[in-house]
């Protein structure tokens, strides 16, 4: 609908006015902010930035390390985005990841002598159960008692992390580890398949498949439509026979299940054992990615790769430029702040 009073944009400008323009503006500001951050700390900004890009996407090894980081980010982002479809703000990816690792490891330890075709499904089932449990508890607290899910998931994160500390320092500690708090190494049958001699593992495949399935379910199925109705008005949903409570439990459990898979993949492939500091913040990164993607499941995939690249490049900068590991957190936060600011201003301008 065009009328005379509306300004008619040239095609090129119209593109700039769309989301692509917003993304371009975000990217430019982020690059400038990153350069400024390096420069403020007295570093060779431009060369460090080049090093960063190379460290993430420069060669096949760097890219494989990027994909290694992508897997848990992708899965924990889905664990945030699915509840968000019902208007729930879950910040519990981190705790769910730890519980997945905890239960999955429990299954491995219980069936350690079994062949891989028994051990592997047991391990994955355990991980999914653990994650789902840590998702469904805040769901139950919300539906039964009305406890705010943002607060309960935040608190449960710390409990989940401490539970893992408890088992690796206590009952599950490997007696032969010379005091190092960790479980025994996972047997070969409990190590997720990896691809092309890299550390890239099945967790990435789980994440991509889950993202696609969730996208189809939410956009095409009756259930997805139900979520939308429930979200905008639980009462209307209820009259149409859609139980808001049941859906809360489902989305929280499924989200937790996915984060749980991320946890066991980290323990099995990356650490080869369960130990402290398993996830070092993947849960929060997943939260940021889910919001960057506007809770859109398919957009989460490329954004997770980008964020994985940021973390991988921070690792390589730590090695080559002795940049503290915390720089990854700072750049992550800068990126998120810029995207939030630009997207919100862009949306506001379009609405007025």
């Amino acid at each position, binding site marked *: 609908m065009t009328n005379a009073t509306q300004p008619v944009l040239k095609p090129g400008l119209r593109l700039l006015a769309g989301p692509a323009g917003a993304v371009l503006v975000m990217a430019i500001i982020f690059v400038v902010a990153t350069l400024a951050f390096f420069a403020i700390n007295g570093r060779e900004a431009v060369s460090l930035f080049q090093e960063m890009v190379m460290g993430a996407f420069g060669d096949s090894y760097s890219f494989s390390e990027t994909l290694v980081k992508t897997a848990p980010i992708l899965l924990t982002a889905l664990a945030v985005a699915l509840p*968000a479809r019902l*208007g*729930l*703000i879950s*910040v519990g990816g981190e705790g769910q990841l730890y519980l997945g690792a905890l239960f999955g490891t429990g299954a491995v330890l219980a069936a350690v002598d079994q062949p891989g075709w028994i051990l592997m499904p047991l391990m994955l089932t355990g991980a999914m159960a653990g994650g789902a449990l840590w998702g469904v508890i805040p769901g139950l*607290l919300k539906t039964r*008692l*009305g*406890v*705010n899910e*943002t*607060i*309960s998931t*935040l*608190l*449960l*994160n*710390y*409990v989940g992390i*401490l*539970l893992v*500390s*408890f088992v690796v*320092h*206590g009952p599950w500690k490997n007696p032969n580890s010379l005091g190092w708090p960790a479980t025994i190494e996972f047997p070969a049958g409990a190590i997720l398949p990896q691809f092309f001699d890299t550390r890239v593992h099945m967790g990435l495949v789980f994440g991509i498949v889950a993202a696609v399935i969730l996208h189809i379910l939410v956009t095409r199925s009756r259930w997805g439509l139900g979520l939308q109705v429930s979200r905008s008005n639980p009462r209307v949903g209820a009259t149409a026979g859609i139980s808001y409570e049941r859906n809360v439990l489902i989305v929280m459990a499924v989200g937790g299940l996915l984060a749980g898979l991320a946890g066991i993949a980290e323990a099995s492939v990356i650490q080869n054992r369960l130990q402290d500091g398993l996830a070092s*913040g993947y849960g*929060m990164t997943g*939260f*940021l990615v889910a*919001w960057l993607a*506007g*809770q859109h499941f398919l957009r989460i995939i490329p954004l997770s790769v980008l964020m994985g690249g940021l973390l991988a490049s921070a690792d390589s900068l730590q090695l080559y430029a002795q940049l*503290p*590991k*915390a*720089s*990854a*957190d*700072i750049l*992550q*936060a*800068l990126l*998120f*702040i810029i995207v*939030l*600011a630009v*997207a*919100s*201003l862009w*949306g*506001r301008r379009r609405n007025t």
Partner: protein
Amino acid sequence: MEYFTTELLTLLFAALRSATPVLAVVLGEAMTQRSGVINLGVEGQMLLGAMTGFAVASVTGDPWLGVMAACFAGIALSMVHAILVLGCGANQIASGVAVLVLGSGLSAYYGTPFVGDKIDTLGNLNHTFVSDIPLLGQFLGPITPTVLLTLLAIPVISIFLFRTRTGLRWRSTGESQDITRNLGHNPMHYQLAAIAFGGLMSGFAGAALAVDYTANWVEGMTAGRGLVAVGLVIVARWNPWYALPAALLFGASEALNLKLQSWGVNISPYLLATLPYMIPLSVLMLSYRGLKASGGGMPAGLRVVFQNAR
């Protein structure tokens, strides 16, 4: 019996000391939320405050300068939240998490050189007239200045909030921005002040932790205290007076954790360490029935934040 009383009082005063940083955050965050803004970034502001306060105390040798610097660091970081939320209209939960990550990143990055430094502390009431008070002297003696300042903040804040015109407008902004606007005031001014005050209190809380309570800086040392405080604001029903018992809940669970270990209770310290998170969560569960019925005093403007997720 006397042994029992002594142990109980020791526990109570230990609880008060470890509750102080959390109490400061609860007070600040309660004020922020009263204006209709929630800030999860207090955890990051607390970390930045702890690091800045410790670093300044270490470099200048003056712990009080450290406390002041920590307050400014808290305010500065909270302004990121203010710009995103008030200036850009970004979602408050998302913005809070961004500030949280930024604060923990900045404090870890710039705090590394100060790990293991020794600093002068703010001192305590030992060797003053207080420690000569019969019976109670031994418990009051270890009380430090940040504890007293935080306790003093309770009546000051509640008088401001409930007995002044500005406090009334502050509260009405949290209920409905339209009311404030119709009275001819800009609601954003109150929200900006509220976010800054939350920043000040969380920065101060960081200093209370790093400069006063532990006299030490360790990466990530707040261990979720800021986030626990956001939960405790609900338990305290956005009332400065209830903030004290709510924060003591955290302090008591932490003090109990240490006490049980010293009594030789044979439970893993890692399981005991879940108490400071489980107990507030349990109270939240128990108090929610009552909260639901009365609305719990949640500012109406805040409810909108949770309903408009994303």
